């Protein structure tokens, strides 16, 4: 319903919002379609989804090189909220299907389950994460709650607090657990990011509640929902799909969380805000995030690779995010490719440390 309305806008006129939204609608809805079929029809559709999320996306990035999102003729950008809500709801359904397919009584062979693990895991890590991130930045209450629900289902609920209240505040500084320290490998980074964001998010929420003059019930603390919600998800997996279901959930959500953390790692590696003479951090600028311009992966991840503009304007909706190669540093490959490279620290440093050094000399 939502999807048809948002994507259906393109039927009205080629110069309306539809043309801009088309890339996002198509790129994200195809894997939803494949993965839904996978749950009903079995492993072959997981192969299709996996090939789509890897080979097809990579090829499309190369083919559409140079194409960037354009404004409509009157300068307006679509808001894209219907697609974001659709993807959030689709996620909640797909995670149940995924656990069933991988850990439940689905009749899939071991190899089918493995391929499905990769396919669902990549979808949750690249599309669901990017979309939930979009939702938690929204002003409206219900889209934001949907975003939180997606993170809770990934056993990563605290990210909904830590991301806006810690990462955005302290990005590219030593105070942010989700910005890597200089030359830190991903393997050193991720436990500090996970635990650090949990603790600092908790602290930020608690202190904010204390500063307000209202009396809050302890049960309304957001972390109560994150922890109890996570426990509920695990319990439901156990009841519906047994121990193997819980195992599938742990591995699948772990895989999705790792992709989110590698995204943070890649997007802020080596970039640091300076402190002025008064001790204050400089404001977040175009040079404090890594960006990637590739067309199809940007569509798949709702412009998440346009990271500098997102940090400079966190309320800007994803179709409106901008790139500026003259001011914003670019990764040498697409975000997913760089994420994979980050798993190999020696090669990662060999590729990225010279780029970081070059940026530093050009600013000095």
């Amino acid at each position: 319903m939502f999807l048809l309305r948002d994507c259906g806008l393109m039927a009205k006129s080629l110069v309306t919002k539809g043309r801009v939204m088309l890339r996002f609608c198509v790129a994200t809805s195809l894997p939803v379609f494949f993965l839904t079929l996978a749950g009903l029809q079995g492993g072959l559709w997981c192969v299709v989804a996996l090939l789509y999320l890897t080979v097809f996306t990579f090829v499309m990035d190369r083919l559409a090189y140079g194409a960037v999102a354009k404004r409509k003729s009157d300068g307006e950008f679509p808001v894209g909220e219907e697609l974001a809500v659709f993807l959030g709801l689709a996620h909640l359904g797909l995670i149940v299907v995924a656990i069933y397919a991988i850990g439940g009584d689905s009749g899939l062979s071991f190899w089918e389950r493995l391929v499905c693990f990769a396919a669902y895991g990549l979808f949750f890590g690249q599309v669901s994460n990017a979309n939930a991130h979009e939702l938690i930045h929204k002003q409206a209450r219900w889209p934001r709650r949907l975003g939180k629900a997606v993170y809770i289902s990934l056993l990563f609920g605290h990210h909904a607090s830590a991301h806006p209240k810690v990462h955005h505040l302290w990005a590219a500084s030593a105070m942010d657990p989700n910005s890597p320290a200089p030359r830190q490998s991903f393997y050193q980074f991720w436990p500090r990011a996970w635990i650090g964001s949990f603790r600092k998010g908790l602290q930020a929420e608690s202190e904010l509640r204390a500063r307000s003059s209202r009396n809050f019930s302890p049960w309304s603390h957001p972390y109560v929902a994150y922890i109890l919600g996570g426990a509920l998800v695990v319990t439901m997996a156990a009841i519906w799909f047994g121990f193997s279901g819980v195992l599938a959930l742990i591995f699948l959500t772990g895989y999705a969380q790792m992709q989110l953390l590698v995204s943070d790692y890649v997007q802020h590696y080596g970039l640091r805000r300076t402190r002025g003479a008064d001790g204050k951090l400089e404001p977040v600028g175009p040079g404090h995030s890594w960006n990637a311009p590739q067309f199809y992966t940007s569509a798949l991840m709702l412009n998440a690779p346009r990271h500098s503009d997102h940090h400079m304007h966190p309320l800007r909706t994803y179709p409106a995010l901008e790139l500026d190669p003259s001011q914003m540093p670019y990764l040498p490959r697409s975000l997913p490719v760089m994420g994979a490279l980050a798993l190999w620290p020696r090669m990662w440093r060999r590729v990225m440390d010279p780029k970081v050094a070059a940026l530093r000399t050009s600013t000095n």
Partner: protein
Amino acid sequence: MKKTLCLIAMLATPLVAETPMSAAEFDSYTQGKTLYFGTNGYRYGVEEYLPDRRVRWSFLDGQCKDGFWYEDAGQICFVYEDNPSPQCWSFFDRGGNLGAIFETGGDLTELYEIEGNGEMICLGPEVGV
């Protein structure tokens, strides 16, 4: 022992929870001003305070919406033209700098006053398509 703890707790409370501004204090602080607000390290929005408790808000995106405010149970509540539900905030005067906390279903947003830079642009409604 209990009494001592109670006393300490009562004394400590003002240190954590500030007293929100009353309607009169808020009115006199904001009259005729255009205030810019930030949150979590980024610019959030701007509000123009007009006579008769009317306001105009923008998320610094070229779009503006009109509204008005009133006091309700110690909070300042705003109703804007695009949403009949009131949004209620607690405002604090932090040494000549306005702060505000907004709660919607347990999710708190905190704003603080920041320096303006003439960004309150209100473009007209969409013409044509």
